[in-house]
């Protein structure tokens, strides 16, 4: 199990870059290795820390004997990385990307191109210095780390991405990457301002607690300070990560999908094929309203993960971290089509059932799309194309029954993509349920036919 069929692969490996060049932009056939430096980057952060400690103790104490074990750990990390690099290889096999890895437990994955939900090119800081990039291929319901090719050279990553996306659209894999059209760039000042505004309530609450604790019990100062200090540190780190993750946010469209680039030190370039967008959500937090700001989030089928940061998981991605309504409307139109239905309000008596959210409630649908507005403090609008509907539900609680109201839910793939026609008239809601089911079926048939 441990022996690796190196002899079978090494000839192709040696030639692969040249092959790729000669094939006119396409990725060469046969098995490929990752870049030899990738082990260094994976271990990079820990490694630099350990070397730093070692150097520090060498300088201050003049002796390195106590810290020898740190060197051993560092060496171990490098060796592990090297072994991982040695046993990992990938290959394009028709319309499938195959990745094999693992020394003791061989792990062989087949990623059919037609099932790809999104492709990300991730470039952590160290990788940027070395001119490398990781390719993260997202499939619905696939695992996290296994579908990541870390690291390739930048050119190789771009070529492979073009190939995969061409395969996803059912084109010839050798199709070169289509040109992209820039749509929106978010100014840095706005990213920083908006992120700070969102974090402000938390910092405010923390300050209030700190002041209250200190004035109430003077002796508690030290203990309270250290605890609150830790929380504050966490908040600052989080805010910093959000700012750096969204810095330089640019959206572009190309025939193979929406392309999102973002990041200050580590950069990410995400590509989401248009057909893979399950739903788009528009949110307007309370504190952003004076500035007329909002943000857009796209839902893509996949495993739930973190929303932000360079290693963001699947499912939800920011399409616009902060922007004005015009930009948001424009983007929604680009992604989902311009046929936006008119919204209608639920009947007045719904105020009795939903006193806190009634002022936002609205919903509407036409033959291709459903749009619903909900929310109490933060206004949330969901745009959902009807062919993406997975199921339609009607719910009616006891209060709603008294008022002869009912809510209709449209579910798209994933955990959060979900449009609610909240508190509609009961008799209309029943009709809406069947109508949505029919329209969704027609839209689906039209899509699969076209």
């Amino acid at each position: 199990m441990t022996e690796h069929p190196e002899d079978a692969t090494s000839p192709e490996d040696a030639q692969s870059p040249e092959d790729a060049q000669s094939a006119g932009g396409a990725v060469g056939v046969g098995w490929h290795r990752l870049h030899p430096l990738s082990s260094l980057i994976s271990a990079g952060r820990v490694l630099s820390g350990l070397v730093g400690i070692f150097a520090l103790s060498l300088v201050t104490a003049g002796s390195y004997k106590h810290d020898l074990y740190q060197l051993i750990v560092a060496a171990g990390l490098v060796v592990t990385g090297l072994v991982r690099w040695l046993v990992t290889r990938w290959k394009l096999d028709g319309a499938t990307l195959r990745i094999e890895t693992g020394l003791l437990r061989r792990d062989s994955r087949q990623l059919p191109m037609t099932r790809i939900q999104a492709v990300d090119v991730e470039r952590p800081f160290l990788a940027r210095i070395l001119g490398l990039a990781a390719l993260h291929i997202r499939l619905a319901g696939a695992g996290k780390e296994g579908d990541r090719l870390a690291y390739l050279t930048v050119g190789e990553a771009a070529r492979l991405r073009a190939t995969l996306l061409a395969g996803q659209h059912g084109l010839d894999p050798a199709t070169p990457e289509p040109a992209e059209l820039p749509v929106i760039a978010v100014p840095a000042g706005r990213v920083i301002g908006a992120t700070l505004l969102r974090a402000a309530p938390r910092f405010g609450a923390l300050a209030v607690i700190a002041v209250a604790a200190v004035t109430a019990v003077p002796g508690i100062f030290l203990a309270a300070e250290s605890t609150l200090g830790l929380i504050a540190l966490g908040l600052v780190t989080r805010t910093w990560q959000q700012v750096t993750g969204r810095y330089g946010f640019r959206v572009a469209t190309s025939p193979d999908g929406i392309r999102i680039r973002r990041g200050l030190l580590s950069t990410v370039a995400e590509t989401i094929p248009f057909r893979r967008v399950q739903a788009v959500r528009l949110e307007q937090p309370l504190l952003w309203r004076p500035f007329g700001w909002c943000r857009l989030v796209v839902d893509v089928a996949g495993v739930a993960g973190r929303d932000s940061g360079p290693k963001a998981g699947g499912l939800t991605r920011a399409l616009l971290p902060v922007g004005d309504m015009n930009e948001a409307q424009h983007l929604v139109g680009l992604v989902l089509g311009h046929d936006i239905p008119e919204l209608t309000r639920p009947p007045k008596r719904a105020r009795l059932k939903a006193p806190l959210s009634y002022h936002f409630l609205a919903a509407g649908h036409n033959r291709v799309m459903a749009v619903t507005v909900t929310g109490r403090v933060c206004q949330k609008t969901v745009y959902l194309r009807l062919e993406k509907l997975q199921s339609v539900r009607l719910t009616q609680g006891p209060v709603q029954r008294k008022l002869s109201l009912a809510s209709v839910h449209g579910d798209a793939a994933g955990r959060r993509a979900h449009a609610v026609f909240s508190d509609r008239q009961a008799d209309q809601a029943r009709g809406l349920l069947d109508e949505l089911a029919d329209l969704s079926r027609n839209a689906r048939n039209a899509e699969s036919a076209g």
Partner: protein
Amino acid sequence: MRLTQVAAAGPVLGVIAGVAAGLWAGAWAGVAAVAVVAVAAGFVGWVERRRYLAWAYRERDEDLIVSRGVLVRRISVVPYGRMQFVEVTAGPFERVFRLATVQLHTAAAASDARIPGLERDEAARLRDRLATLGEARAAGL
């Protein structure tokens, strides 16, 4: 199915409660305990009966409709083409009565099309039919 559980558990619990209370605080307390348990079992039985009567499903040409709920009414429409897989489960109580639960799963986490307390044969028939229809009408994500 739950109805039978209540019917079985009610008298047993009643007897246990009666004996325990009788030993601990005299005969009258025992009778009172039996009465309390009987009323509680009756109430739960009534609720479960309402629940059972409210649960219904219908196989249409293109989708499956499941409606359920007494206090909160829910109607789910799941197109066959959207089905990812069908799950048939049978717990110990269900197995005693030769019953099974059929559940449809879609890619959406919120979809809930569950039909409990089906006869085992009917559950198998429904499972096969849904699987066949799902395959025939399957659509990508």
